[in-house]
């Protein structure tokens, strides 16, 4: 089982280091590859221009059959789908995950989510969610209802 895990992550890491997509860079990946830190640089011309954020990927040993846990660490961007504890409300990270997605595809999705945002504001239920949410966003039952931002 971990055979696929290692192969796949080695390959993804190599590809992302060889030609990283714009605005995405691997800061750190530990030796057994199950925790990565990725730096996102917000695109120019967006409301987050000039800001950079850190994402932490945690891969379970069923990856890529199972989605990675992706959260912002440090100071998360202020965005209607990103909670102040770093949890991200993005369907492909939870029930819409498929092995056809990759770390770089997830990063690009999050970057585009930031780019298409017009107004920096917290999710409406931020306070109550942060209060009751567990450590991992994968334990949350997400309801995805807004495709505009």
């Amino acid at each position, binding site marked *: *089982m971990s*055979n*696929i895990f*290692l*192969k*796949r992550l*080695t*390959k*993804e890491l*190599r*590809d992302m280091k*060889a*030609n990283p997509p714009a605005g995405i860079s691997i800061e750190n990946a530990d030796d057994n590859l199950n925790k990565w830190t990725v730096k996102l640089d917000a695109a120019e011309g967006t409301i987050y221009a000039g800001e950079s954020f850190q994402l932490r990927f945690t891969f379970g040993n*069923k990856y*890529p*059959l*199972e989605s990675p846990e992706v959260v912002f660490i440090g100071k998360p961007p202020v965005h209607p789908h990103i909670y102040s504890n770093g949890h991200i409300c993005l369907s492909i990270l939870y029930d819409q995950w*498929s*092995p*056809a997605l*990759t770390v770089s595809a997830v990063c690009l999705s999050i970057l585009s989510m930031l780019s298409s945002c017009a107004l920096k504001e917290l999710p409406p239920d931020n306070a109550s969610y942060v209060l009751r949410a567990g450590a991992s966003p994968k334990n949350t039952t997400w309801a995805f209802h807004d495709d505009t931002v």
Partner: protein
Amino acid sequence: MYSIEAERIEARTCWICLESESEDTPRDNPEPRRSSRVGRMSSLSIAAILGNSNSTPSASPLSAPSSRTTDASAWVHPCRCLGLDAHHLCLLRFVAERRTTHPGDPVKCPVCLYVYDIDEEADWLGAVLAFGDRATRSLVPYATFTAISATVYIMSTAYGAYAIVATCGPQLADSILSDDGMWGSRTWIGMPMIPIALIASRLDIADNVLPVLPFLILSNQQPISITLPPSPTVTLCFLPWARQAIRKQDLVVYRVLIYFATWQFNNNRAIYKEIWRLVYHFTISKSLTAASTTLHPNTDTTINTAVVGEQQPIANAQPQGFPPPAPPRRPGPPSSLPRLLMGALLLPAIASFAGTVLGAVPFLRSKLPSVFLRSTVGAGLVILGRDIILYWDFVRRRKRAMGNGRRIRDFTG
């Protein structure tokens, strides 16, 4: 220039482990890695020269349904998605994972949602279990509903039995409940209906049904004979009508009783006229009607001071430019569900208690010989008394809200 498109067509990449055809097969040791794309390119060209890419599809074991086991290097292209090829083993793991996380659901391509055509041994046990699992899942709401209804039904029946014992006394209850083992519709439908009827009697949802309900329920008995004191049957038939009369007349009875209690009538003739009107015409005088309309804030009527005890018309009581304060809530249906349930379901206990108190008076005991009658009269008196007190309090608070009956004294010190 390096062409990604060309590579995709030339060398397939497994969309699960991301390995391309030219690289190691899944079974091989994953350690040796070429670190640059140039390296892969060269290996790719070697593979092309050797003609690997052409020979593999025909060697795919999937084309031979007889053998389901496969070697690790085999490739599949299970749907029409261009470029979504996978190692057979990787895809099998994906299928196995989906089968455990979504049992019973068909496994689909995550991109084009094509249902994979999987040739597998008929898994009868698994199919039966999956069917059972799905059936259980779909039955859960119905089962829960049935269980809750049964619980409510049994509790209602038990409560009905308790209510009968409490209000009718042991002897009558015994004759009602022990029907020689012949439990008919009255037991199966009537008893569970008792708490529901009690709750309904506190609301106005069943106003149109309640007066005829006793006749419907008791119709299988002998002709109802009017005696004095009335039999339980007659009492039961009379109760909804009494309730309706009291409610429909907009608390007239309470008001008249309050006037008695507070001596606010000027002379005795007014009282007699009022009672006569109430008994004979089943209505009230204009002055009382006017008093009742002032309960609604929208109507502005001048108030008969002698009758209601108001000192001024409402309009004059308000300072200019201020909205009138919200009038206090008049006594009526209970304000919350717990109060409604408590009030309705406590009634038999209250009736039983009041009946016992009435029974302690020898005179009343001789006039009201049966336990049921005493309970009924007792409960009626308790309700009447409570409503009179509430209504009295309401009238007082309403006066206060309108600025009457309360005055702030000037500073004299």
